[in-house]
């Protein structure tokens, strides 16, 4: 069972929900938490454990072999990202633009663009009693999150059984990294705050999930601030609201110290229980 926790707007509580929900599940069963916000992973501030595995992750980038190249121009014609540019008699490759699709390499008539591994980041796996925690982190200077998110998803899929509860802390926004982080999930939790900004970005996130044909529900964080527009919007559009996490200064204090919040605030534990029950009752079709 794969549950991705995403949001349109940043700073609405993805990590707070991911880490606290993980810890709540871990009270009774094995659970895997994966931080897919590889550009700035932060779940590890709240969930620690013993390092059990570390892997360097690579992406494949074409390398121009000048000698065999006939400068036919096929490569740059086939590259959708302008990562291969031909300038007269030379070929320039831009690794930051390359999406590792292999088109230039496979379609080169003289095999002059072999794909070469290039380091992009690392994956770490930690273990703490019932919690397995996976954290991937892009190297500084790397611009593309998608290949590392994809490889991390593969790793989690291969390492843990299908039935294990897996929680994925997704990146914010609605662009490619979010698509990659949510496309294989069985259910998406969209967390938002009850403000005009929260609602605006929630609508974008909902459109994205509808486009991906995903089942999703909404969690309202910092409930009590702002207005009722998020609730009204969800009710009007038949979108389930799984929980309303009350706004509290104490949450901010605990969070700022890197501590879990549900163990200290009973009202929050109650709301997390609702989410947990909702997840356990989900009927996954495939």
């Amino acid at each position, binding site marked *: 069972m794969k549950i991705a926790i995403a949001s349109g707007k940043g700073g609405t509580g993805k990590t707070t929900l991911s880490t606290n929900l993980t810890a709540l599940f871990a009270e009774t069963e094995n659970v895997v938490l994966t931080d897919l916000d590889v550009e700035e992973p932060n779940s590890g501030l709240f969930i620690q454990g013993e390092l059990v595995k570390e892997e360097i992750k690579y992406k494949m980038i074409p390398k121009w072999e000048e000698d065999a190249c006939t400068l036919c121009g096929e490569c740059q014609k086939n590259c959708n990202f*302008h*990562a291969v540019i031909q300038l007269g008699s030379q070929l320039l490759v831009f690794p930051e*633009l390359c999406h590792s699709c292999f088109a230039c390499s496979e379609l080169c008539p003289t095999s002059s663009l072999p794909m070469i591994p290039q380091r992009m980041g690392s994956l770490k796996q930690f273990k703490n009693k019932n919690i397995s925690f996976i954290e991937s982190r892009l190297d500084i200077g790397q611009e593309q999150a998608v290949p590392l998110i994809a490889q991390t998803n593969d790793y989690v899929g291969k390492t843990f059984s299908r039935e294990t509860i897996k929680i994925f802390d997704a990146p914010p926004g609605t662009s490619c990294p979010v698509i990659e982080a949510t496309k294989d999930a069985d259910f998406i939790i969209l967390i938002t705050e009850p403000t005009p900004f929260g609602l605006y970005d929630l609508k974008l996130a909902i459109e994205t999930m509808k486009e991906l044909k995903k089942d999703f529900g909404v969690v309202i964080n910092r409930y009590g601030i702002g207005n009722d527009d998020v609730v009204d919007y969800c009710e009007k559009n038949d979108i389930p609201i799984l929980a309303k996490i009350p706004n509290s200064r104490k949450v901010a204090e605990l969070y700022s110290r890197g501590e879990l919040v549900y163990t200290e605030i009973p009202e929050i534990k109650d709301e997390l229980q609702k989410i947990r029950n909702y997840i356990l009752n989900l009927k996954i079709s495939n």
Partner: protein
Amino acid sequence: MKIAFTTKGTEWNSEMDPRFGRTEFILVYDEEKDEFNSFDNRDIENEAHGAGPKTSQQLFELGAEVLITGNGPGGNAATVLQKAGVKSFIGAGEMKVKEAYEAFKNNKLKEF
């Protein structure tokens, strides 16, 4: 010398486009022949990635030796321009093409 301008139109009196990679037009002035040649770059809107390198390559194909633009090319575009031997001058984003040319001739533009 062939001088390329990033522009919002195809005439001497057109506004400059301050953007490089996503400029609407490229206007090339051939000083020797006193001739204009323009390229409609508006298809670049459809490109999510790599606009800079793509437009740089276009400049190369248009045979430009000098680029006059506004904000200046980004990192990838600058690499292509350098390999293509195109010298870039920036700060002409708010001018008309004619004014940008005069400013260039009077050494008023900053070399990138």
